[in-house]
């Protein structure tokens, strides 16, 4: 369970998180949506301890995360931009992360699934954007963790890889894991998400299932529902 209480974060003059409260249960796929700059990535980075909130508390599994780092062994994180150290080979990167985490992994299986075999001996700087993203996916699914955080996981993927990614996400869900996803691709969200959290100006604007959202906004398409959600504030 993730419990966020009164989270504030300001970058310069920009109040990114403005007293955000949030409770998420265990298991299921939760999509965090919101316009650009609504604080999605900041919220995720707060959960990971990469951004330190000005005020407020975050508890993951009933344990406050402030000042702690061990809890991160229960989280797999996939960053938005697949940027890796350039002069490291793909295999070395996998080995390094494995060495750092010391947890059982299924990197080999995943690398094969995404067809990374021929790229393992290449340096990361020579890979294409999509291939880097595949490396990113393998890195974030290789360990068995109760919480997965995926920030824009679909960027740059070809259709075949996208299908495999969806399968992987569903598979993780069926194992009872919590998967947090941010995405701007509504089709993708509508297909995989059980629950939607809509962020606006640093607060939760809506939290519920996709169907609830459609019902509230009286739209039968998630894309339109999201577009309508802010236009009709009385629905919130």
């Amino acid at each position: 369970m993730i419990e966020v209480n009164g989270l504030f974060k300001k970058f310069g003059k920009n109040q990114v998180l403005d007293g955000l409260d949030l409770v998420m249960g265990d298991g299921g796929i939760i999509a965090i949506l919101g316009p650009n700059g609504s604080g999605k990535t900041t919220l995720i980075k707060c959960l990971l301890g990469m951004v330190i909130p000005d005020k407020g508390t975050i508890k993951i599994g009933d344990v406050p995360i402030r000042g702690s780092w061990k809890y991160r062994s229960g989280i797999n994180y996939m960053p938005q931009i697949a940027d890796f150290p350039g002069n490291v080979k793909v295999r070395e990167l996998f080995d390094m992360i494995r060495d750092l985490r010391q947890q059982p992994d299924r990197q080999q299986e995943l690398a094969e699934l995404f067809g990374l075999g021929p790229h393992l001996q290449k340096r990361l700087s020579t890979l294409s954007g999509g291939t880097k993203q595949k490396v990113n996916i393998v890195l974030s699914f290789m360990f068995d963790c109760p919480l997965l955080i995926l920030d824009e996981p679909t960027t740059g993927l070809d259709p075949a890889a996208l299908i495999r990614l969806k399968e992987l996400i569903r598979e993780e869900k069926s194992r009872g894991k919590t998967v947090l996803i941010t995405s701007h691709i509504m089709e993708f969200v509508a297909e995989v998400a059980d629950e939607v959290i809509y962020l606006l100006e640093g607060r939760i604007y809506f939290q519920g299932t996709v169907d609830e959202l459609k019902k509230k906004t009286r739209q039968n398409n998630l894309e339109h529902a999201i577009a309508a959600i802010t236009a009709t504030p009385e629905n919130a």
Partner: protein
Amino acid sequence: MLKILKYSFYDLMRSRWSYVYFLFYLMLGFVLLFLNNDVSKAVITLMNIIIVLVPLIGTIFGIMYCYNSKEFTELLLAQPIPRRSIFLGQYLGVASSLTFSLIFGLGIPFVLYGLFMSDAIFDFSLLLVTGAFLTLIFTALAFNIAISNENRIMGFGYAVLLWLFMAVIYDGLFLISLVIFEEYPLDNFSIAATLLNPVDLSRTLILLKLDISALLGYTGAVFKQFFGTNAGLVISAVMLLLWTIFPVWRMVYVAKRKDF
């Protein structure tokens, strides 16, 4: 932390710049020995180069590494590793690979030339030790600059300024103040001013060890009196250590509170 150190170290050891740095010292060592034909004299020439060059390389390399490894750092931050280990590991990785290049680049030609049979071995070791200290100090300062400045251009600017100040401007100011206040007793002032700049401190230490402090005139005598004693040596070693520890401590302090 040791794992991060290991990866940073390997990463740097494989990069072209480490080789360039290593080969530069290797060539420098051979050329100096060839031209001087004397280990002791080569040590003096080498000192003049090391005192200026090591801080420059430490600063530039440190700041470059920090900015270039941004992705690596972010990857690590999401892993179950404390921030202190990430930054200390990277810092030690950079500093140790630079020190490695310095010691082996200079060590090989001197050893081949017969360093172990000459009496300059202690002078040479002192030179390497201060070189190592200067690397540690200026890499740490560079990490501090990089961690406090998101803007790379600004960061580079500050780093170059820092080096320029420590290696060149500081001496100028020091000299000017000595001239202006020449009517006053300046012994303590000049000792303090020397202690406060690691570049000057290293230079003075080596000059005194080489026993050519006569070149420094009256000031040299004062320094000799201060640094020549055991207490002076201990104090300067402590100062060099403080110069290393304080920036490293600040780096960890800031890193722990920074948003990524």
